C-alpha cells in the first residue's frame, strides 16, 4: 500500500520529534512556574499548606504518569472540561513536573544554612525579601544541576502520551512499524532519537554538578 524507504522513516520520525520537543518545552516551562508555587507552599509558614502540598507531591510521585494521563484525559471531561490529547498531555505533564521540581527545589532551599535565615530576619527582612535576596540566589546555584537532570525524565515521560493518542515520536514509531513491518529498525531509530535529545542534557547536568562540587 505504501512504499516507505529508510529516509521516509527518518523524515517522519523527525517531524514527529518536533512534537516531543514542543511538549517537553511546554511541560518544563509551565511545570517550572507551577513548581515555584509548590515550592513556596512547601516552605511556607502555614503547616496546613505545607501538609496539603506534601499530599499533592505524594499523589504525583506515588502514581504512574500513565494513570495521571488517563484521569486528565477521561476524568476531567466528566466534570465538563474538554481536553484534546495535546492539552491533556500538556496539563498532566505540567502537574507531574511541578510536583517533582517543587520537591527538588525545596531540598535546595532547605540546604541553605539556617543561620542565613536568622541573619536576614535580624535585618528586619520580610519572608519574600528573605527569599528573594538571600535564600533563592544560593538555592538556585544548587538547583541548576538536578533541574537539568529532571528535564531528561520529562522528555522520556512524553513517550507515555502516545498511549492517549497524541502523535509524537513514540506514536509515530508504532504507526510506521505497521506500515513497514520493520520493528527492529524503527524502534531502534526511535531510541536513538530520544538518546540524541536526552544525552546532551544528561552530560550538561553532570558537568554542572561537578562544577558545583569543585566550587565548594
Amino acid at each position, binding site marked *: *500500500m*505504501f512504499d*516507505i524507504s529508510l529516509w*521516509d522513516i527518518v523524515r*517522519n520520525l523527525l*517531524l*514527529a520529534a518536533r512534537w516531543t520537543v514542543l511538549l517537553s518545552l511546554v511541560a518544563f516551562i509551565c511545570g517550572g512556574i507551577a513548581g515555584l508555587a509548590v515550592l513556596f507552599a512547601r516552605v511556607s509558614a502555614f503547616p496546613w499548606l505545607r501538609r496539603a502540598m506534601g499530599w499533592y507531591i505524594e499523589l504525583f510521585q506515588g502514581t504512574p504518569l500513565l494513570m495521571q494521563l488517563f484521569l486528565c484525559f*477521561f476524568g476531567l*471531561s*466528566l466534570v465538563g472540561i*474538554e*481536553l*484534546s490529547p495535546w492539552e491533556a498531555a500538556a496539563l498532566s505533564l505540567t502537574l507531574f513536573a511541578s510536583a517533582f521540581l517543587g520537591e527538588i527545589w525545596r531540598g535546595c532551599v532547605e540546604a541553605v544554612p539556617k543561620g542565613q535565615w536568622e541573619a536576614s530576619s535580624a535585618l528586619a527582612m520580610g519572608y519574600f525579601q528573605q527569599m528573594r535576596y538571600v535564600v533563592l540566589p544560593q538555592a538556585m546555584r544548587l538547583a541548576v544541576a538536578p533541574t537539568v537532570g529532571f528535564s531528561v525524565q520529562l522528555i522520556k515521560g512524553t513517550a507515555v502520551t502516545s*498511549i*492517549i*493518542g497524541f*502523535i509524537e515520536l513514540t506514536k*509515530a514509531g*508504532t*504507526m510506521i*512499524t*505497521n*506500515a513497514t*513491518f520493520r*520493528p527492529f529498525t524503527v524502534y531502534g531509530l526511535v531510541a536513538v532519537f530520544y538518546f540524541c535529545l536526552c544525552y546532551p542534557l544528561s552530560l550538561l547536568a553532570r558537568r554542572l554538578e561537578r562544577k558545583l562540587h569543585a566550587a565548594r
Partner: protein
Amino acid sequence: MKKGLLRFAAVAALSLAAFSTGAARAADMALDAITKAGVLKVAVPQDFPPFGSVGADMQPKGYDIDMAGLIAEKLGVKVELVPVTSANRIPYLTTGKVDLIISSLGKNPDREKVIDFSDAYAPFYNGVFGPADIAVKDAAGLSGKTIGVTRGAIEDIELTKIAPADATLKRYEDNNGTISAFMSGQVDLIATGNVVAAAIIAMNPPKKPEPKFLIKNSPCYVGLNKDEPKLLAKVNEIIAAAKKDGSLAKISNTWLGIDLPADL
C-alpha cells in the same frame, strides 16, 4: 447526626435529579449546536486501514474519513477529524469530545446501553486470520493457540465468549499493537476485521493473515450520544440519500474495492 446525614443525602439526590433532567432537556440540541458552531467533530480511526490510517505524509485517509466528510458536507459544516483508538472512542463520545463516532463501529447490546447507532454505512465482518500453515476452521480449533486482538473491539468481546478455555487471548491497546504482535510472531493468529486483514495483505508483509473462520458479521454504524433524535434522524437521512445516489458505493469502491452489499 444521622438525621443530618439523611437530609444531606436527600438534598444531594434532589439536586442530582434536577441536574440530570436539565442535561436531558439540553440534550436534543446537538444538531443545532453543530450547525451553529459550523464544525462537526468526528472520531475517526488512525490505525485501521482502509477505514482510517495515515500515509507517508501523516494525513488521515480512508473510508471513515470520506464518510465524515460526506456527512459534514450534507450538514453544511466543516469537519474536524479527531483520531481515536478502538478502546477510547466511546469515552470520546460520551464525554462530549466529539459529536459522532465514524470509526468502523459495530453494534452490540452493551454499547447500545451507552450510545445510539445510525443505520449501517459500511460492510464489515470479523474473523480469525492467520498464516497458511496454521489449520483452524472454527473456534474449537483455537485450543492451545495464542490469538491477538484489539481490546474492546467486537471481536474481543465475541471471541472471549466462544474461545476454548486453553486458548490465550492477548489484548492490545490498538490495532497497531495487535498487528505488530502478529508480525513479530508474538501471537499465532489475530482476530480482526476482513478489511484490516485485506489491507495488511495488500502491503505484502512477510507473514500473511489469511481468513480462517468468521466470528461475526457486523456492519459499521455511526455512533451518537443518547437522546439526540434530531441528529440521529438527520444522519440516517444523509446515509439513505448516499446509498440511493451512489456516493456511498463510490466510497466503498475506493477503499474496499467492492460494491455495497444489497442487504446493508
